[in-house]
Each structure stands twice: as C-alpha cells, then as structure tokens.
C-alpha cells in the first residue's frame, strides 16, 4: 500500500502535470471544436458540448467494434479471418500489431519452430533464403568491426537455441552449473576451432595470469569453480577460452548502459492498479457480474425464467433489477444501486460519457479506453454486437441487444470498483465523497517503467552469441563503445518476435516450395483429356476434405473425372426440408438469398407424411417433457425417483456400444425417411412474393443461368459423361457444440445436399437443357445428373431422387453407387491415418466402421478433423493437378481459363472462393497460433451457454474461435492460392473485388500464377509476380494413394499417384 505522505507528495507533482495535460487536452478539444468553444481559463476540462462528446463516444464505440470477435451464435458457424480488423495492414505487421492489442501470440512458439526445424518441416535453406530476402530489403550491416554481418548474426541465433534469462536466472545458472566455463556443444566445428585457436595466442601461460585474473571482485563464483581442482588437460583450453570470453563479455557490458524500456502505460484502471497491487484484479470482481447479466439477457431458451424487462434492453433491465436495495451486495459494488438509480432513464451513450468523465479519462484516450474496456470481455461484447447487427441470425429470441448498453454497465461497474479500490488502497485520501477523476493520470505516472535486461543477463547473452558467431574474447575486447552498442542493439532487435517471424516465413517457404515443385513436375506428365467420353463425372465442393475423395474416385480410372466448385452450386436459397420447421439460408454468408425452396412429400405419400409427423411430434413431446421435468421441483422429484433408472439403457448403450447405438438410430431414421418420398418445390409457380420477401422458387431463366454458370465456372461445357454426380457435403456428429463448423462453408455453415439435389434437378430439366442449347451449351440427351450428399464425418454418400433415374441409366447408376461406396471406404481409410486411436494397420473396412463410430460417439471430441491442415488452393483445370497426392490439404477449384475470354469467370471465382478459403485458413491459423487468445482452448471444460456459444466452466467469457481438438494437427501457413492463369489476368481479376485485392496485396494469402500454356509458375510478392524456379522437379511416384500414406501419421509431401493418371482397369483391387 502506498504511504499517505508519498501519495500527497506525488500528488502535488501530478497536479501540476494534470494541469499541463488538461491544458493540452483542452487545446485538442479546441481544435476539435474548430473554435466553437472559447478557451477556458479554469484548470478543469472545459465542459464540452454534450452533443460532440456523444458523437466522439459513438465514434469510439464504432471503432472498437472492429476489434470484437465476429462470431455469431454458434449453431451457424461461419469461418472468418480472426483478425479481420487488421486486413488493411500487411500480414506480418498486422499480426504483431494485433498481438499488442489483444495480448496474444503473433506466431507459434520458438520451441515449436525449432521442433519443425528438427523434423525437417523447416530446412536450413529456407531460413537462409528468408534471411537473404530480408537483407535485400533492409540492407545488411557490418557488426563487431566487420567480423560479422547482421545476417550472419541472425543466422547463428536462429540455428542455436540461445537462452535469454534475467539477472536472477543467470546468477542461479552461474552458481549451479559451469556453463560459462564450457563452450556450447552445438557449435560448428570451424567456429569451435576458431575460438580455440585463441587459446594458443592469449593464454601461453595461464599460471602467471591467474593471480591477476581473479582481481575482478565481482566474480567470486568463478574463483570458486577454478579452485575446484585440476581439469583434464584437453578441457583446460576450452575452459580457458570460455571463461576468458565470459570476462570479456562482463567487461563489455559494463561499458554500455543498460536500457530502460519506456512502455506506454495501459489505459484501464484495472491494469494500472494491478501493476501497483498485483493481488487486486478488479476484473475478477466486475466480470462475473457482467457475465451473469449478459448471459441472462441474451439467453435463447436454456433458462426457464427469462430476465424480466429484457425487451427494453440490457441497461434498462439491469437498472430495474439492481437499482433497488433489496439484497446484500459484495463490498465492491455497494455503490452500484445508487449509480444505477442515478442513471435511470438516461441514454446509455450519456451514461458512458458521464462515466468516462468520472473516471477522468481525457477525451483523446476515449477510443483506446473504450476498446480495451470492451476487449476485457470480448466474447460477450462481440456476441451482443453481432446480435445488434444481425437480429435475424438469432436462434430463438431477437433480444434488443445494444453494445452501448453493455459498455455503459461495464464502465459503471468499473468506476464503482475503482472507487472502492481507491478507498481501500489509499485510505484517508479517498473517501466516499472524494472523486476519482484525478486518479487515472496519477496511476499513469506511477506505472512502473520496464527495465531492460540487467548487466549479468546481457553479459550472458553476449557470451553465448559470441560463441555461436565465433567472436573471441580478444575480438570483444577490441570493440569500442559504439561498436558494442551497435552489436548489442542488433542482438536486442532480433528479439523473440523477430526470430519467430523469420522462422514462420521459412516454414511457409518450405511448404510453398514443396507444393510448387510438385506442380512444376506435373507439367511434363499431364495432358488434357481428349476423345473418349468419360464413364462418369462428379462435381464436388472445393472443400479440401473432398480432395482425397476426388483422388480416390479418380483412381478408379481415367474415365472418371471430377470437378470442384463452391458447394452451394450457385443455388442460393432459403431451404426447408420436410423434417425442418423453419427455412435456413444455404449459400455463402455474403449472399442474401432471394428464393425459397421447400421439400414436400410426393402427392401419394402425403398421408404417410402426416402420420410420420404426428409420430415425430409425439416423440418430441415425450423427450421434451422428460428433459424439462427432470429439472422441476414436484414433477422432477417424482419423475427422477420413479423413472430415472430407465436412463441406464441409453447411458450404457451410448457409452459401451457407441457405433451400434448410432447406427441403430441412423437406420431407424433412414427407414422412416424412406417411407415418405419427397421432391423439391423448385420451380416458381406463383408470382407472389413470400412474407419474407423471397420468391417461392426459381423461374426457368434463373435456373438456366444457374446451371450455365456452374458448368462454365468449372469448364464442363463438352465431353459430358452419361452420369454426372453432384455432391454437396455436410457433417453430423455428437458431443460437438462446434458441429456447424464442420459443415459446408459455401453453404454458410449448412449442409449442401439440398443444393446438389436442386442443381441436379435443374440440370436434368429438358426445358433448361433446351435454353442452354440455344445459348450454345449442349448437354447430350443421354446425360443424367444426380444429386447427393457426402457426410464428411462418417464417409457416407446419400443420393437424392435415385428413384427418378431413367431405366436406361439404372444399371450404370447402380455401378456408380457401388463405386462411390468403395471410394468412401478408401477415403475413410486415408482419414484414419490421422486419428491416433485408429491403428496404422487398420483395414479399409475397419476404417470405415471406425469413422462411423466416431460420428455417433458421445465421448468423441474429435468426430472428424474438419478443415485442419488446409493450406493450398488450386484454381485451374483439374487435369493439370490430377494425380497429385495433396494430403487433403488443398481446396480444388475447377476453372478453365481458355473459355474465360472476358476474365469475368476468374473474377467471380476469386470473389467467391478467396474470402471463404482464406477465412477458413486464417481462422485455423490463429486458433492454432494462440489457442487461448484466438481460439477457444480445449473442448473438455466447455459449457454451452444460452444456446449461443461456449464458456470455459461455469462463468467465463464467451469463447470464440476454434477449439484445440479441432486444430491441433494444423500447420499454420497462409493459404497458397495457385491460379492457372497469366499474371496480368490475375492482377486484373484481383483488382476488381476490393476484398480480394486487400487480401492479396497485404499478403493475407499467397498468390501464385500458373501459366495455362507453359506451366511456368510465378509468386506474387510485394505487389508483383516474380518467376519461380523449381528447386527440383523430381517427385516420388507411387501406384496408388494408399502406398504413399499407409503407415504414416505425419504431414506428407506431394507425390504422384499413377492410378489416378493412367488408364487403369476400373475395378482393380477396390476394397470390397
């Protein structure tokens, strides 16, 4: 606690300073007001026009909203760039900037990069290349009298794990080990020789020197170690060299002054007080209350009793409930009811302004102060803001959420808590009547400066670094003061973040080179398919999880072709299935659908449908009543006592026989579904708009445009097979609040089956075929489209409208169905290599059973691995990348630049694909870089709150981002977008969409041009395309995927899979 006298002393000083600052503030205000206000003579802040203060405050809030997480209610999970607010800045700068604001990590840890270095995921060539590129930009610098360069210094530091410790730790190290008497064991042999050579010159006669050697009084430790008796002779020289170097370093750092790092004090009182009194964390008092309020206010139906008065907004509801004096309060918030009482009826913005003034925050600081105050509970603040912006996305109750309400309460509680803390910490100075408006500046002044490393610490660092760069004691002693300062500052500049940045760039480079070399090697061996009509074609989503599925499909033979396009197949619609009770949008989040499509039972099955619905309703009522009654007093008591034991059946079944139970449920559902055949109400038969303003279906022109657009996008305009499968995807799993994050991103976190079904129905429609033919796109009459949905969790394909398949195609479809089943099994087998609980020698059939069990297992926290490991996006003709094993890491977008005369297909493809792909990629990137700060940590303690999101345990901030279990195997690298087009055309397409331009120019994705004719690659760097020279175009060649991945769990480099390229008999050793 601060002594009272001290306080007054410092207060006098600060009062002067306060005046100074306030004068400055008032000057700012004057400028701000453009002379509206007369200069004020008094010492206090001029009373600003309330209107302007409000405006300023509103602007500050608007500014702060960019920094809040953009994740909405969790039942529709949309991947987005976690740092979307920073997209205007270049990627690397943005990461470091954001890490300061959020208190997060910008890159992986140095240890992790070193592990990658050891495992070969980063090579030394990569580090060298990155350092070369850096020194090209910044220029290199001679250090230590020209003996080393900055680049060589940095290189040496990167390749040797240098311990950087504070004085205390170094002192401990010196006492407990003889580390300053040995050379490092990881030195290059040449450097080691260089250091040892010194021994011969400088230490011709050690014994003579010994007496003077120990003159230095501050080094008792060394004296002691030297006195420990004789060392083996061959170590004596090393010992002398190391010790002498240590002395040289100690002497060197004594020449220069230790640095004091001036850090800007934090703006929030909580942080300022915590710096003085570490045991007092005001947020620990305030946050639980705010969490309770926000959760109660936003709740979508978990609580049986909703917050009274919440229809009038959070602030009003809370002031109504808490302004009365009915109930004991915690010591810190005794003043809260009065504060709420006083603010009753006020506009929240006015409350915020008043609280800011009471807290004594100068107006120029409002923006930062408000931002940091909101970031303290960013999850809840973000959710309130999301619901304020998109009340239509709320699952059940659209409560009138306003961020200003939340902020007003936050600041009011903060102020009350600060007043309480001030009274407690500086008793006598602050009492109940004393205002705390001067406290802020006072605390800012008191904020302790961060001292730079002390002498010992610097000497120790210098000692290690001199060794790794080969500087001897003599070299160090030869340096003058300026040289030393330059050397030390070069070392200090290359701090942890700078090192991790270089490592990260090297990490990305290695990955990039692997992929680009593989692509370059493809150029010689691939050729466009010609002539023979393919046996079957399949259109998939671009999702990287479909990569392996497509590859296995292609391994059936060269007459099987695949395409990739955004998984909503250009059918943007609100959709309601027969089992759904409301429509949901199935299209990318940026599109608001204009059409609604319903699934209805076939006319002959309507009766069945009604019976089924009735049964379902009965079942729902029973289940709902059961889960509710177990929580009520009278019914619950009786119910639990009498019937609770029945729960033993599902409990044992679910835990002991998860797959059996899940399959039982799925089979029952499938049987019940099969009884009611359905169709889509796809075509608009009614010109009137629906109540929500959408059209009830599409007209023929619209459908033609959709089919045409997709077929053109993917370049499927000729050589149609007799069967074309269109496969959307989704994922169903239990025990997974983030279930929606595994669904199709192009369907806005929904399942793309209905889109595929709609597209296939459209493409089969003879009228649409005719209009397409009129426009020059001829689909042969005997070509049949069939829609389906791939469940990426249990690897199962469900077909739609198979019963409508004409008899002429029935047997071919049956073959296709069987083949796809086989492909599902192979795909499951490839996926299983990533699951530690699946043995490496698992057979394909067991693997399929394994993934089925995962999907239905209540205990499984990793039902599937989602988009983890995604890293590449290839936009181009499939035949050019076909046959490459891309390890489920690549988004594959079909695009044919030869038919894209106007370049508009590329423009729209990029506009659709880049935000989705980069959003997914960066969300994984940040969630793995800082699992706690950007992700939502481990899933195990997650607790679903208000049906909106998850908390850790019983009361925490709402956790946004992805859980650790989802991202743990992810390698955080920026998406490598390879576009099969010329650099000029790519630049032209990028320019046209602002968002894509931002992502590309600021390098939030790495863009590569792949020339459609020559196959030359060029990488987009610093605003221009630079030709890429492959390091090696030798690539491993295997006959089938399985021979490449079998027995491996780790990331695999690309390989050429012959089966997918050559014309092999279709049925060759397909798993049965």
């Amino acid at each position, binding site marked *: 606690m601060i002594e009272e006298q001290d306080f007054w002393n410092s207060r006098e000083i600060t009062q002067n300073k306060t005046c100074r600052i306030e004068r400055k503030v008032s000057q700012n205000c004057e400028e701000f007001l453009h002379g509206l206000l007369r200069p004020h003579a008094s010492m206090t802040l001029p009373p600003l026009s309330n209107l302007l203060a409000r405006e300023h405050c509103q602007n500050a809030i608007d500014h702060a909203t960019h920094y809040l997480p953009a994740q909405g209610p969790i039942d529709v999970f949309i991947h987005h760039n976690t740092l979307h607010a920073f997209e205007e800045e270049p990627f690397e700068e943005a990461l470091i900037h954001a890490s300061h604001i959020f208190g997060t990590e910008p890159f992986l840890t140095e240890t992790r990069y070193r592990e990658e270095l050891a495992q070969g995921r980063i090579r030394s060539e990569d580090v060298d290349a990155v350092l070369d590129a850096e020194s090209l930009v910044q220029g290199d610098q001679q250090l230590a009298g020209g003996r080393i360069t900055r680049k060589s210094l940095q290189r040496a530091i990167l390749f040797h794990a240098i311990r950087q410790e504070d004085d205390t730790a170094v002192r401990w190290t010196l006492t407990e080990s003889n580390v300053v008497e040995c050379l490092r064991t990881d030195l290059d042999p040449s450097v080691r020789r260089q250091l040892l050579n010194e021994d011969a010159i400088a230490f011709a006669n050690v014994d003579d020197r010994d007496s003077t050697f120990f003159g230095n009084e501050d080094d008792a430790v060394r004296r002691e170690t030297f006195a420990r008796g004789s060392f083996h002779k061959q170590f004596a020289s090393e010992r002398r060299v190391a010790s002498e170097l240590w002395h040289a370093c100690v002497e060197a750092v004594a020449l220069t002054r230790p640095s004091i790092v001036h850090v800007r004090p934090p703006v929030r009182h909580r942080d300022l007080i915590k710096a003085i009194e570490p045991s007092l964390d005001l947020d620990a008092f305030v946050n639980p209350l705010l969490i309770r309020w926000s959760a109660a206010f936003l709740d979508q139906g978990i609580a049986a009793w909703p917050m009274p008065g919440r229809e009038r907004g959070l602030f009003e509801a809370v002031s109504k409930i808490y302004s009365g004096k009915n109930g004991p309060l915690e010591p810190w918030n005794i003043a809260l009811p009065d504060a709420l009482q006083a603010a009753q009826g006020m506009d929240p913005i006015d409350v915020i302004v008043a609280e800011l003034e009471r807290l004594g925050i100068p107006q120029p600081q409002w923006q930062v102060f408000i931002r940091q105050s909101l970031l303290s509970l960013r999850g809840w603040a973000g959710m309130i803001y999301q619901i304020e912006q998109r009340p239509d996305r709320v699952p059940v109750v659209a409560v009138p959420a306003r961020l200003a309400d939340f902020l007003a309460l936050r600041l009011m509680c903060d102020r009350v808590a600060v007043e309480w803390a001030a009274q407690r910490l500086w008793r006598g100075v602050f009492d109940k009547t004393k205002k705390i408006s001067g406290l802020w500046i006072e605390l800012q002044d008191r904020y302790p400066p961060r001292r730079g490393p002390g002498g010992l610490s610097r000497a120790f660092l210098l000692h290690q670094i001199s060794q790794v760069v080969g500087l001897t004691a003599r070299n160090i002693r030869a340096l003058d003061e300026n040289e030393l300062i330059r050397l030390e500052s070069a070392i200090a500049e290359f701090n942890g973040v700078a090192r991790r940045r270089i490592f990260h760039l090297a990490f990305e480079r290695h990955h990039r080179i692997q992929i680009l070399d593989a692509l370059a090697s493809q150029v010689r061996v691939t050729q466009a398919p010609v002539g023979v009509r393919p046996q079957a074609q399949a259109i998939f989503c671009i999702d990287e999880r479909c990569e392996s599925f497509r590859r296995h499909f292609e391994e059936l033979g060269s007459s099987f072709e695949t395409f990739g396009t955004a998984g909503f197949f250009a059918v943007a619609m609100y959709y309601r299935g027969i089992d759904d009770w409301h429509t949901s949008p199935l299209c990318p989040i940026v599109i608001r659908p204009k059409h609604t499509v319903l699934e209805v039972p076939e006319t002959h099955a309507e009766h069945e449908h009604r019976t089924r619905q009735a049964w379902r309703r009965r079942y729902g*009522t029973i289940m709902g009543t059961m889960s509710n009654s177990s929580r009520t007093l009278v019914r619950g008591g009786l119910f639990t006592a009498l019937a609770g034991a029945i729960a033993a059946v599902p409990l044992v079944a679910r835990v002991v026989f998860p797959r059996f139970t899940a399959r039982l449920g799925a089979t029952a559902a499938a049987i019940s579904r099969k009884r009611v055949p359905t169709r889509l109400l796809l075509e608009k038969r009614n010109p009137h708009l629906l109540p929500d303003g959408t059209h009830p279906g599409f007209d023929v022109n619209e459908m033609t445009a959709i089919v045409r657009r997709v077929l053109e996008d993917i370049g499927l305009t000729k050589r149609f097979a007799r069967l074309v499968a269109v496969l959307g995807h989704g994922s169903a799993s*239990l025990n997974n609040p983030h279930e929606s994050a595994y669904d199709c991103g192009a369907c806005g976190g929904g399942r793309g089956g209905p889109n595929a079904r709609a597209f296939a129905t459209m493409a089969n429609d003879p009228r649409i075929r005719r209009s397409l033919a009129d426009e020059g796109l001829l689909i042969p009459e005997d070509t049949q489209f069939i829609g389906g949905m791939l469940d990426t969790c249990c690897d199962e394909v469900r077909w739609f409208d198979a019963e409508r398949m004409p008899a002429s195609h029935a047997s071919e479809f049956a073959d296709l169905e069987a083949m796809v089943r086989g492909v599902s099994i192979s795909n499951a087998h490839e996926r299983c290599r990533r699951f530690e609980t699946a043995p490496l020698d698992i057979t394909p059939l067991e693997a399929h059973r394994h993934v089925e069990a995962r999907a239905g297992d209540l205990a499984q926290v990793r039902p599937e691995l989602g988009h983890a490991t995604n890293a590449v996006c290839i936009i181009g003709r499939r035949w050019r990348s076909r046959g490459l094993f891309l390890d489920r890491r690549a988004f594959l977008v079909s695009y044919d630049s030869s038919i894209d005369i106007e370049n508009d297909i590329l423009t729209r493809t990029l506009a659709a694909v880049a935000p989705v792909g980069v959003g997914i990629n960066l969300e994984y990137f940040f969630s793995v870089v800082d699992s706690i700060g950007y992700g939502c940590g481990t899933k195990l303690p997650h607790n679903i709150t208000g049906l909106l999101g998850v908390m850790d345990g019983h009361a925490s901030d709402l956790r946004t981002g992805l859980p650790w279990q989802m991202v743990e195997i992810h390698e955080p690298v920026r998406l490598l977008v390879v576009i099969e087009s010329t650099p000029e055309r790519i630049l032209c397409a990028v320019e046209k969409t602002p968002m894509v331009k931002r992502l590309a120019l600021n390098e939030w994705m790495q863009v590569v041009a792949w020339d459609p004719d020559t196959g030359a690659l060029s990488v987009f760097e610093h605003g221009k395309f630079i030709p890429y020279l492959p390091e090696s175009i030798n690539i491993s060649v295997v006959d089938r995927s399985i021979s490449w991945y079998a027995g491996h769990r780790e990331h695999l480099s690309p390989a050429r899979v012959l089966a997918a390229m050559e014309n092999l008999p279709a049925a060759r050793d397909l798993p049965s």
Partner: protein
Amino acid sequence: MSMQDGIYYLVVCQLAAPAMTFALIGLPALLGRPLSEQATTRVVGAGFTSGFMAALATLVTLGLQGFPSQVVHLGTWFSVGHHAATIDLVADGLSVPYVCFSTGLCALVNAFAGKYLHREPGFTRFFLLLTLFGTGMNLMVLAGSIDVLFAGWEFLGLSSALLIGFFHERSNAVNASLRAYTTYRICDIGLLTAGVVVHAAVGSGDFGKLFSGTWPNAHCLVSTNVAVGVSILLVFAAMGKSAQVPFSGWLARAMEGPTPSSAIFYGALSIHAGAYVLLRCESLLDQAPAVQWAMVVIGSVTALHASVVGRVQTDLKSMLAYASMMQSGIIFVEIGLGWRVIPLVHVVSHAILRSLQILRSPSALHDRHELEAALGGHPGSEAWSPRHLLSERSQVWLYRLALERGYQDVSMVRLIVLPVRRLFEFAARGEERLIMWLGRDPTDSSRGGPK
C-alpha cells in the same frame, strides 16, 4: 464357513480392485514413465469391472439369503485397553447394491473418459484421481466403522476438489476447487467430531456397537443423547457434500473440470455421499426426531432454493448442477421422513439420469435441433409457474435473488470470510507485537510492552 470366506474375498476384492488400479497407474507415473493412454484405460477398466463383478457376486450371494449384515474384519489399527480402532467392512442390503451401482458407474465413466480425454496433457492425472475417487467411494460405502468411513470420505473430498481444479492453469477452476474443498473441510468437522463422540461413547468406531440388526431395520444400541449428538454432527457433515443450503455455493462452480468428472461427481456419486452416510446411520436418526425434522426443513429449503435459482441459469452445466441440488434436497427430505428404500432408489435413479444428462450436455445444440424439428417449433417456454402469483415487484426481487444464487456467496463473504480474516489479521498483529516485545532489548526502556 466357506460362505463367509467367499464374502470376505469378494468384499476385499471390491476395495482392492480400484486401489490396485490406483497403484498400477500411479507408480509408473511416479517413476516418470506413465502408461500409454490405452493401457491406462484398460487397467482402470479392468479394475472397476472386476470390482463391479465382485460386488455383483456379493449382491447375488447375500440377496439369496435376504441381505444379512456381514462384517468383514480386516484388522485393527490400534487398541488401548477397551478402546480399539478396528478396520471393518460391512456387506449388507445397503452397501452392496450401492457398491454395485457406484463401481458400475465408474466403469462407464472410465470408458467414456478414455476417449474424451484423448491427448489431454492431464490424462494420467485424471485417471489417477478417478481411481482414487473409486477407492474412496467403495471404502466409504463398505465401511463398517466410522474411522473407515471417514477415510473414504476424505479420499472422496480430495479427489473431487482436485478434479474441479483439473485445468489448474485457469484461475476460475482453481478458485472453484478451493471453494469446494473449503466447504468440504468445514463440514468434515462434523464427521470427525462424530467419530470422536462415537469413540468416547462406545470405545470403538464400530458400527456394530452403535446399532445392530440388518439394514434397514437396525436398532440403535446407544443412548438417545449420543444418538442425537451423532445425528446432528452427521447431518452437518452431509450438508456440505450434498450441497445443502447454506453450503451449496460450491456446486455450480464445481462444473469447471472435464465433463465426465462433472457427471460422476456432481451429478451422480459425490453429491449423494452425504445421503449415503445418513442412510447408513438411519437407526441413530430414528432416535432423534428433531434432527429428522431439521433435515426435512433443510432439504425443502435446498430444493426450493435450487428450483428457483436453477430456473434462471443460462448455461447447461449450472442448470444441471441446480437440478442435482434440488434432487439432493428432496432426498434429504425423504431421509428425514424416516424412509429408507425410497431415498436409496431415488439416489440411484437420479445418479443415472443426471450422469447421462451431463455426459450429453455438449450435444445440447444437436439435441435441441432434433427436438425442434420433431416438434415443428421451439419447445415453448413454460406457460405458467408459481412465480406468476407474485407481483411484478416481487418477481424482480426474486429474479435478482435467483441470479445472485440466493446471495449465498455474498453472505458467506460478509458473515464468515471477512470476520474470520479480520480475526486472523488481528491475531497476527497481536502475535507480531508479542514477539517484538519478547525479543526486545531489555536495556532499551524506551519501548513499552505489548499494547
């Protein structure tokens, strides 16, 4: 006497199986070479399953004979004159079914947690604590003397608290763990004192000297005064573990650990430990009608409290915690009413149902969507509840009370924590001055004595 021998081995096996498991996974971990995940789950699974089988065999054997009370004497800790602390276990109509159920549930949770905690850094620690819990549970349930019961009770408390603080890198979890442990320890005073009283009264901790006959029709052997005293102390002890008002604040906070531990501890077993102890000593309670009435009151207040507070909880685990608390209050009432079999059935039923609910809680969104699809709409909020009888003002008052969880935390801080801390601070200052005075320089007369 082969029958007796058989029971002896079976009962020992029920206890030894989880204890051996604890050693089997604990020792390698202690030596720095923890077992693999798969081996750990298998060992623990084998331990609990064999314990369960042994319990099942005992159940059948005893059940065929109409559940006589079988005492298994393991040894004597110490004896002084007439006074002895024996290590006895008892197998009867209460303990054997209960061991069956608790070991079975532990085995299930083990199977669940093996997958749930896959690749978690604290994997081995979790299973160590789970087996410690299982051992403690069986020790407590099978206890034939109050000393053994206390030992089991303490293992239970310790493992519970450590599992609440499983994610010890988060301060919330550690705080919650500490709060639960403090509550436990305060209420442990009851059980410990009860032990002392029993020893003083009958010269041994043996239940056989307190009551005789077969459960649930045992009759009390000690004087009414002792019975009342012990009953009061046992009820006090049970209140903490069973989260009865005013010791219920810790329960909702306890949902900080991994889901399976929340399920087994706060949904199923730990929360019913108090009820079990009271059922075990039912014949003493019969002698103390006033205590029984107090239990009815405490149980009703708890149930009412939990019902009101539970209604406003917005996260699943807190809601389930209050639902558990409510049932535990009702069970208290049932025991207070002098019922025996009903509360036992209620405990088992409730534990199974609640475990399933907590284990399913991460799937709540999935389940909710299915339910909505089946119902064709949102499951409507309740149309009417007794709160609608109140005026709007009173509703707001009650809502705040519920949101503040009955003001339990605040009252605890203001009525107990702060005064106790002030007392300690006062004592510390006094001690400091005393030492200063004692250590004063005798020649220096300028300083006075202790003030």
